[in-house]
């Protein structure tokens, strides 16, 4: 009896092991991707393609995307799209793993700054035959690389200086407009007045406590407003001169002095909007996503345009976009979906659910607040007027992380010129492989 028991135990262990190994060898393929070559089955059943999104944690956006997918599946009998949602934190790793296992889904969403990298790596197939539709999109929502379009997005966000009319009045600061934003001197004088009053823990909060993509997204527009840039955009081969020239050094020195002179915290709190609403800061540099909560708290919010530091105001651009993979067994189905899903009503749907800037004029009319003259229309105008895309080069992920580290070092007192020179050297080395 005990022998049998032991045998069973051993057998069970062996089976479990075999199963877990089997699961391992299949790797990241757990999301049910269609059988390879499934496109041939054009008989009775619709051929199914899969679509991945990073939206597992964003209920509203996921529901909007699911609506589009359901509409598409209901509109015709030829193709069927199956939506798979991933948590955002592990989404990029999942795609990278799937790509190396040649198991990419037909359709996927991509954070815009990654598009060039993934297109260069051969993950993505260019989108063709949609130029007419996409010409009506905000340029920052159409992701291009090497002259080809690889993805489009439903919305964009803009950056803005959030403050209150009552604060501006109290300190005698002019209310800026899109045509006449604050100039550098004017803005610094305003910060000084606020700081000298001692009423705020920090005159400004630029969300230095956040980490990751916020640094290049939020702070490289400031650099560009000074006249510098992350890379020379004529051929994307070198950052020499633009990222360590006089103008870039001027930006870095200004950035460092913001903290040194006590205008901002070297490391702000984890929720800068909340701190602003609690009266800890008078100016908040943040994305348009902050509009909804801030407006609920204050009736006199001012969403000021980016400050002009000499080269005009600048904001970042590009958000999540949709494209098709190069490993798709049924490209026609993917293309059909992308065409179907680009309609204005879907742009409006997703933008409304996410409180973001709808990419087309027609859709903007459908989203409350974003219609011309609406409360959120300023963001759309800022986006149209001030957007500078993050460099559309495969080297961007490297540039982004290297820039974050250097900017943090500078904020903490590293010598601006030396740090920027080192950064330029690293970026140039990394860019070599793409030529």
């Amino acid at each position, binding site marked *: *009896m*005990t*022998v049998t028991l*032991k045998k069973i135990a*051993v057998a069970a*262990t*062996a089976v479990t*092991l075999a199963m877990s*190994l089997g699961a*391992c060898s299949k790797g990241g393929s757990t999301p049910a991707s269609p059988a390879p070559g499934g496109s041939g089955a054009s008989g009775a059943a619709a051929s199914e393609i899969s679509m991945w999104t990073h939206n597992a944690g964003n209920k509203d956006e996921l529901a909007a995307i699911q609506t589009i997918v359901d509409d598409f599946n209901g509109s015709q009998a030829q193709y069927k799209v199956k939506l798979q949602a991933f948590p955002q934190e592990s989404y990029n790793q999942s795609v*990278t793993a799937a*790509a190396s296992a040649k198991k990419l889904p037909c359709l996927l969403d991509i954070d815009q700054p990654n598009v060039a*990298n*993934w297109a*260069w*790596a*051969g*993950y993505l197939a260019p989108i063709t035959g949609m130029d007419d539709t996409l010409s009506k999109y905000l340029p920052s929502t159409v992701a291009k690389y090497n002259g080809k379009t690889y993805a489009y997005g439903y919305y964009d966000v803009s950056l803005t200086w959030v403050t209150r009319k009552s604060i501006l009045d109290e300190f005698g600061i002019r209310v800026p407009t899109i045509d006449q934003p604050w100039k550098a001197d004017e803005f610094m004088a305003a910060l000084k007045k606020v700081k000298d009053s001692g009423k705020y823990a920090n005159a400004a909060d630029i969300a230095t406590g956040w*980490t990751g993509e916020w640094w290049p997204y939020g702070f490289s527009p400031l650099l560009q407003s000074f006249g510098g840039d992350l890379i020379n955009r004529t051929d994307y081969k070198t950052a020499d001169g633009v990222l360590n020239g006089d103008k870039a050094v001027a930006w870095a020195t200004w950035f460092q002095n913001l903290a040194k002179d006590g205008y901002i915290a*070297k*490391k702000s709190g984890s929720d800068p909007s909340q701190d602003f609403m609690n009266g800890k800061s008078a100016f908040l540099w943040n994305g348009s996503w902050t509009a909804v909560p801030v407006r609920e708290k204050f009736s006199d919010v001012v969403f000021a345009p980016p400050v002009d530091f000499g080269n005009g105001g600048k904001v970042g651009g590009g958000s999540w976009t949709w494209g098709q993979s190069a490993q798709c067994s049924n490209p026609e189905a993917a293309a059909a979906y992308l065409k179907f899903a680009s309609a204005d009503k879907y742009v409006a749907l997703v933008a409304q659910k996410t409180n973001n800037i709808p990419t087309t004029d027609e859709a903007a009319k459908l989203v409350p607040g974003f219609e011309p003259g609406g409360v959120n229309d300023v963001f759309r105008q800022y986006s149209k007027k001030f957007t500078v895309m993050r460099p559309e080069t495969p080297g961007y*992920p*490297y540039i982004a*992380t*290297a820039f974050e*580290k250097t900017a*943090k*070092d500078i904020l*903490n*007192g*590293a010598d601006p010129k030396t740090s920027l020179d080192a950064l330029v050297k690293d970026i140039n080395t*990394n860019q070599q*492989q793409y030529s």
Partner: protein
Amino acid sequence: MATTVVTDAPASDPVRRARRTTVRRTAGVGWAMLAPAAVLMIVFLIIPILLTFGLAFTNARLISPVPAKFIGIDNFVRLFGSATFWKSLLNTVIFAIVIVPVQSGLALVLALLVNAKVRGTNFFRTVYFLPVVTSMVVVSMLWLFMYQQNGLINALLGRLGIVGPDWLGDPRTALFALIVMSAWQAMGFHMVIWLSGLQTIPGELYEAASLDGASTWQQFAYVTWPGLLQTRTFILITITIAAFSLFTQVNVMTQGGPLDSTSTVVFQAVRTGFQQQQTGYASSISLVFFVIVLAVSLVQRYLTRDKELKR
């Protein structure tokens, strides 16, 4: 229940016979038992290490359409010329040198305290062990709040009239802050190890010592301390290895900053390999790290073994 007992009893005879006759089957069972661990070790340890050796001499990328090329020792030339690497290595060494005695010492004190025969020791054992079973990420987040300029620690210091620094924001205090927090988190684990060591020392030795008139300190120095030799070796090695692989706290709390003051070798390798996608370069960092850890372990093994032989 009852039926099981009845059926089990007569079944034990055939078992013995089976055992005598088929040694091979037992060996097979042994291999089957070993297999899960062996497979996991090979797949997740041996193969990656071998891959690291190969990749370190190439320009392999995490994402790239171009196959990796052999580039000789370029990665190492770049690595040894990198200020961040030397700073990371220095931080790692400082961290290890400070935390090994501090953490093991405090853990021993705790173990001696909770080993006392008083009521409520189980309560204290549990309390001291709690941080160990809490996820390091959670602990890091909590300490992140406590270390803030206006956080709990500075508020307490403020009561004493001391203006606390911005612990994690100041290059002079950041590494120290990480050391304190790491020692606090892992102390409970080593307390339990010490405790198990303490409880293997026979009570008669203490009785004999006290009959001979040994003071408490003498009892510790001549009975407890020598009795903990094996435990000591184990703790020394585990803390050293854990110290060298410092990563989670850095990743959650400081991301290596400010000014590289908390960057560590493992953190640099992960950052380079995953965020910056430079697999080849990250492999060369890992390879150098592997050699260093191997050297340290060999030295430790040599030193501890030497002592055992002398005794």
